[in-house]
């Protein structure tokens, strides 16, 4: 069951690479939240109840509901339209994401440690690199934030992989989520939307000294 959920996760990454509309990005992020909820539930059923409840709550509340809501609010408030043409055409994006997934699969094969389950590792690495790729190849600032959220999801998956032995690690993964939502989005919602009229990353180039 876990494998199915994680494979669905990976496919959702590819879907993100395909589309151009911001709403799709947000709905994919919400979907990933639900998937992660499922994985967390199955994986961490052995740890004590309070921790489990906390993790489950966090996954549902933050990843599925709160963050997509924030993002929607920001998009509406700043009247951001769809993502403009990215640097690389769509087809190339998909190819790259697929390469990333295959690459992480090959990489995880070189690790001989029996304790790590390969599927988690593959998922985490692909999410990580896909998130980074997202940041590189998109122009709008809001998409950069989404890329960062994808990276976060990947880190969360990795922390789930060892969650039974080290529940603290999962908590740290959650803290990363909370950090992203509170700090980044808070800042975005309030400040950057007011200052930067355009939403392009090129404006940031002026900060160079």
């Amino acid at each position, binding site marked *: 069951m876990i494998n199915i959920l994680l494979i669905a996760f990976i496919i959702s990454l590819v879907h993100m690479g395909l589309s151009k509309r911001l709403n799709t990005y947000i709905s994919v992020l919400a979907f990933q939240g639900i998937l992660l909820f499922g994985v967390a539930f199955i994986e961490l059923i052995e740890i004590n109840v309070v921790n489990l409840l906390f993790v489950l709550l966090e996954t549902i509340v933050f990843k599925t509901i709160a963050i997509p809501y924030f993002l929607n609010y920001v998009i509406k408030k700043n009247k951001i339209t769809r993502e403009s043409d990215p640097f690389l055409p769509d087809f190339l994006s998909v190819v790259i994401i697929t390469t990333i997934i295959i690459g992480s699969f090959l990489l995880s094969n070189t690790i001989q440690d029996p304790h790590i389950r390969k599927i988690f590792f593959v998922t985490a690495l692909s999410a990580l*690199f896909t998130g980074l790729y997202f*940041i*590189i*190849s998109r122009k709008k600032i809001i998409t950069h934030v989404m890329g960062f959220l994808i990276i976060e999801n990947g880190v969360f998956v990795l922390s789930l992989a060892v969650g039974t032995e080290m529940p603290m690690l999962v908590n740290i993964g959650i803290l990363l989520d909370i950090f992203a939502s509170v700090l980044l989005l808070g800042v975005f919602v309030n400040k950057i939307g007011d200052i930067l009229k355009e939403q392009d990353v090129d404006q*940031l*180039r002026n900060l*160079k000294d």
Partner: protein
Amino acid sequence: MSLSIAILVVIFIFSFLVISVKERRKGDIALLAVLINSGLSSWIAIQALQGTPFEEKFYGGTVFGEIIIRADALSGWFILLTNFTMLTGILYGRRYMKAYENRSADITLHYTSYIVNHSAMIGIFCVQNMLGFLCVWELMTLSAFLMIIFEHEKMEVLKAGINYFIQAHISITFLTLAFIWVSSHTGSYDFNSIADYTVQAHPALSFMLFLCFFIGFGIKAGFVPFHTWLPYAHPAAPSHVSGIMSGVIIKLGIFGILRILLLIKVNYIEAGYTILVISVISGVYGVMLAIIQHNVKKLLAYHSIENIGIIGIGIGLGCLGMGHNNSYLAFAGFAGALLHTLNHSLFKSLLFYAAGTVYQAVHTMDIEKLGGLIKKMPKTATLFLIASLAICGLPPFNGFISEFLIYSGLFNGIVANPLSSSIMLVSALFGLVLIGGLAMLCFTKAFGIIFLGAERHPYPAPISEAELPRLFPKYVVALFILFIGLMPQLFIRLLSPVVILFTGSQAISGMPGSFINTLQTVGLSSLAFIILCIIIYQVKQKMTAARKITTSTTWSCGYTPVTPRLQYTANSFVRSYRKLVRPLLMMRKSEGTINEVFPQTTHSDTHPYDRFEAVFIDKPLKSLKRFMGRFDFLQNGSEQFYILYGIAFIIIVIIIPILIDVVVNLINLFKQV
């Protein structure tokens, strides 16, 4: 409660107090803190000088190992002279800073840094654990930096401060290197392990280690060619900070060198020659460049380099004496160096304080715009005169005593040492005499142009003498200068335990006695001289009491009456000297051209520059910038590229081991075939 903990507690309490009181009181709180710290440390120091060294051990955890705090006679001497100058510094400083009272945050930072700096210096003299030493050294550097950049809104002050900061860190790099070298071989962080290590190591290695330490401490002390930060940092800092920097902070380098000489078993003759050569060059170069400066504080800064050279000559002589087993030379050299450390801190700080008072009155540091100040500020002028006489090494003041000791050592060395060293010593003698003569040229110019004659430029505001609280610390220093000059034997007696540390007590059992007698005669002769001056002056007053004494304008050979613009300027005073040594200097001239038949006003500027700086600092910096400029395209401001760099790095780091594995497998495969 142990004394070190007490000092730390004092720092914390008083820093907190400084932050919380009003501006008017901040200086007084700092003064109190410095007083308490000085009291505590002087008590230790005096005991150490009397023969009971102070020792304390702390356990610093697994990182530091055991931290030992030892204060022996050498630390004692330096602690005493540091405390005195820091006290006069804060006494003068709190009056000086009154002009800046409205900048509350800056002033708080300044006074806190002062307290921390003082305590850090006491720590440097006592801490004998390598890591602990580096920590305290860094603390001292940082607090000194914060004090220097008080007027940070001026660009050149900031640049000077950063210059000092960078060079101070180069110095600490050398020290760290040397410490790591030793501790990696001996496994312990205690200073005494340096001694153990060098006893069994190869002499060439010991010498390299010694050079490493020497460069590290030499950058701090200001030996040539490591001196380029000094002439920028001293003018940029407020005057009392310049005074304590010249007075005690650069002496930390000297202390370091002396401490290393005590610990490392190096070949004393080689070390002595090295130190001697570098010191003579520093001394002569420092004063040669000091003469042509037209910013008062820069002139004084170059003079500090020269005096460090003189101290270095003393140390070199002491080492040579130890190497040749000539106890007279060893005593004279080290005693001269140590006494000159004290003397220099006194008269240099006095010069800087007086220059600071002048600056606050006329708001310019350019000598060419000053003149005639003696009539408006007679007391400051007299103090400056006393300090100038002392720095030229003229009797009856203290500068003469330390130079006399070094001369005695030199002559004895020429007489008693083998031939090769005699020739070196004659060159050192030549250098020292030249230094003395050049210093006289420099300070007649400085004192004469600033205070005498008439003003060369109209002054912006009416000038008045500084008030008594500002003059008081200067009087104290001046009295001390005179006291050392007239009673030098007391200080030699105080110094003897320190020199004994170097030479071993049995070698110099009779030495202090003969020196004390000679110096007593010197002191008495100086006293006789002063009395004679007074007698002759009184005779003159008596004989001319009935005669007519009138005043008139200065004689100008019957031509137009004298205007202030006809006076000799500083530049003209040193012109013949400058023409003599032109190949060694670097002057930058910029002139407006004269084209018309009846020219209007034009200008001509001359700025002295430092050849060593051009060669050692500017050229490498330019090549570095050119080289790095080729990679400019990498920093294009787009964050996406930066993340791309990161991803590329991660991929490379992951792939390379895999590739290596594959290649190794292939090779094995080919081997089997």
